[in-house]
């Protein structure tokens, strides 16, 4: 039977590759200008030194047992005894999410097609994509409460069960019995769709057009709902809905957790502990997400510009490149697409190499995939810290575009809330504050990362010497990763 199995990975990979070589004109990366100053050299060096120093102090002296990082939960609000209130609150949040979803679609389809006159592009790319990532990481995961794809699926299931009660029982049985979630598929759908999404976000110039955004949302909705119908709502949500995976992952870092009617406060990062090794596809999903975060910043450095120049001037590639250009292929988009494919592969290889070193150093010789699955969450705080430092001023400046758009979301010339004349105030962010908060979050993210990996090692190995030895390669990897983030921040942004 095995020979008949069709692995959709290669189909999607082919589609992604095909998309990436289609000729498109490039208008420069995500809209909304950036005015960030590079991190000054002295701050860069101070932060780098602090990172190295703290890593070894942490690894050798501070963390002696896993207790440091476990279970400091403070319940702020407990609504578990009031199910009616909880249900009403959740219903209102879900309603809010669905209305906003429909509104974004309406603006995309029926509004003015100029990017800056339409609510959808700014809302989707700045407020939702960048802003919700901030909110998820710094406050808590609200996406699972407002996710319109989940809400609408639950609604249709409820409607179906209410209006066709007779068939329901058979239907449900049939669905549950005949179509369990295939194990081999694990998190692959989310890996493939994240790759496509990142290409659309970072490279495809059409991502700024309101109509395109609306069409993409419709296509994505179809992918979600068909999958939910086939494999069950929550199965598909957890394995394939990329935003659920991303915001849940970021939300695990956050200081607040919302579950079973409780709002709880915890130490940031403690939610990222895991008690089993993640499957390879899940590890790959996280690596892909992390590489996208860094890739975006790398594309704006002068180094990337010189790489592009070197490629353009290389004697070896010139004939091929000229040939492609004559056929109407946009070379920069092509090179970027290749880089976008290579970046996660490279990061994964480096990560696997250090996992191998870790398992060799500890003398346990655990399979490399399993080691990778054990420590994957510990890399998340480093990426989050970088993401927050890189996007803080962008969110505060480009995010202001939403103020005039709220009054005239369709671009029809309305002025509902009298805010259409708001001009971007570029002085809202203090450059020094941005520098210091960047250094602070990068150092803190690094500390949390090192601690998380250490805590995990304490659970895997019971011998302190093994724990220490297993951590050395990982600490080196984390220092390198953090220094990469710092280095990107110290580079002037070139667009």
């Amino acid at each position, binding site marked *: 039977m095995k020979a008949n199995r069709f692995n959709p990975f290669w189909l999607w990979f082919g589609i992604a590759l095909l998309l990436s070589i289609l000729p498109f004109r490039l*208008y*420069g990366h995500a809209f909304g*200008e950036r*005015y*960030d*100053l*590079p991190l000054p050299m002295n701050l860069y060096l101070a932060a780098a030194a602090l990172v190295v120093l703290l890593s070894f102090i942490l690894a050798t002296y501070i963390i002696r047992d896993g207790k440091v990082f476990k279970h400091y939960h403070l319940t702020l609000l407990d609504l578990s005894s009031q199910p009616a209130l909880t249900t009403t609150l959740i219903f209102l949040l879900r309603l809010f999410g669905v209305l906003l979803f429909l509104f974004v679609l309406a603006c995309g389809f029926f509004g003015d097609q*100029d990017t*800056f006159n339409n609510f959808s592009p700014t809302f989707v790319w700045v407020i939702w994509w960048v802003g919700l990532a901030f909110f998820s990481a710094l406050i808590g995961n609200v996406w699972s409460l407002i996710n319109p794809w989940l809400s609408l699926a639950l609604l249709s299931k409820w409607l179906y069960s209410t209006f066709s009660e007779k068939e329901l029982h058979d239907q449900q049985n049939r669905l549950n019995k005949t179509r369990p979630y295939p194990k081999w598929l694990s998190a692959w759908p989310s890996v493939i769709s994240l790759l496509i999404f990142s290409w659309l976000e970072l490279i495809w110039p059409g991502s700024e057009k309101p109509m395109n955004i609306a069409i993409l949302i419709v296509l994505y909705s179809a992918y979600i709902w068909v999958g939910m119908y086939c494999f069950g709502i929550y199965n598909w949500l957890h394995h394939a809905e990329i935003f659920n995976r991303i915001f849940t992952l970021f939300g695990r870092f956050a200081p607040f957790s919302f579950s079973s009617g409780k709002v709880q406060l915890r130490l940031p990062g403690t939610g990222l502990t895991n008690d089993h090794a993640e499957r390879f596809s899940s590890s790959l999903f996280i690596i892909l997400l992390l590489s996208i975060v860094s890739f975006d910043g790398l594309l704006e450095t002068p180094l990337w510009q010189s790489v592009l120049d070197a490629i353009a001037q290389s004697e070896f590639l010139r004939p091929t490149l000229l040939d492609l250009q004559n056929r109407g292929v946009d070379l920069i988009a092509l090179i970027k697409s290749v880089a976008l494919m290579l970046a996660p592969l490279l990061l994964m290889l480096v990560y696997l190499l250090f996992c191998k070193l870790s398992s060799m150093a500890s003398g346990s010789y655990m399979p490399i995939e399993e080691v990778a699955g054990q420590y994957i969450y510990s890399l998340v705080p480093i990426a989050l810290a970088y993401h927050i430092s890189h996007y803080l001023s962008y969110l505060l400046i480009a995010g202001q575009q939403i103020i005039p758009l709220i009054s005239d979301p369709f671009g029809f010339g309305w002025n509902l809330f009298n805010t259409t004349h708001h001009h971007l105030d*570029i*002085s809202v962010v*203090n*450059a*020094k504050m941005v520098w210091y908060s960047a250094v602070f979050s990068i150092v803190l993210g690094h500390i949390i990362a090192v601690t998380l990996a250490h805590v995990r090692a304490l659970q895997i190995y019971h011998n302190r010497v093994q724990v220490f030895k297993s951590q050395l390669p990982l600490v080196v990897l984390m220092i390198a990763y953090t220094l990469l983030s710092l280095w990107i921040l110290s580079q*002037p*942004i*070139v*667009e």
Partner: protein
Amino acid sequence: MNLIYPRRQVLILLYIVLATVLTPIKASDEKVNLQYIEIAKGTVSGANTFKLSQGSKVLLNVRADETLSLHLHGYNLYLDTLAGKEVRWQFSAHTAGRFAVSIHEKGSKRHESHTLFYLEIYPQ
């Protein structure tokens, strides 16, 4: 002769005198950043990043080989150059940041043209 000076006029006069005397003093306190920028064939000669300090008065003497409309992003200021002549661009560097200056194409809302140079305004 008994002259009665109306009090209000005296105060206004005093204010005007003080204001005119004090204004240059205040202005001379402000640092001045003077930069010369040469543009030929759509590129800047030499380094393309100019470092300035926040709170200073910026004087950019721009000489270009053609008539261009320059756009300072973020500050949203425009300057028209004259072919072969030096034009002075003067403004106060009130906000820190890294701001691109590009050639503004009339009629287009988006700035897809390439960046000529950057002004890096550092906080003090």
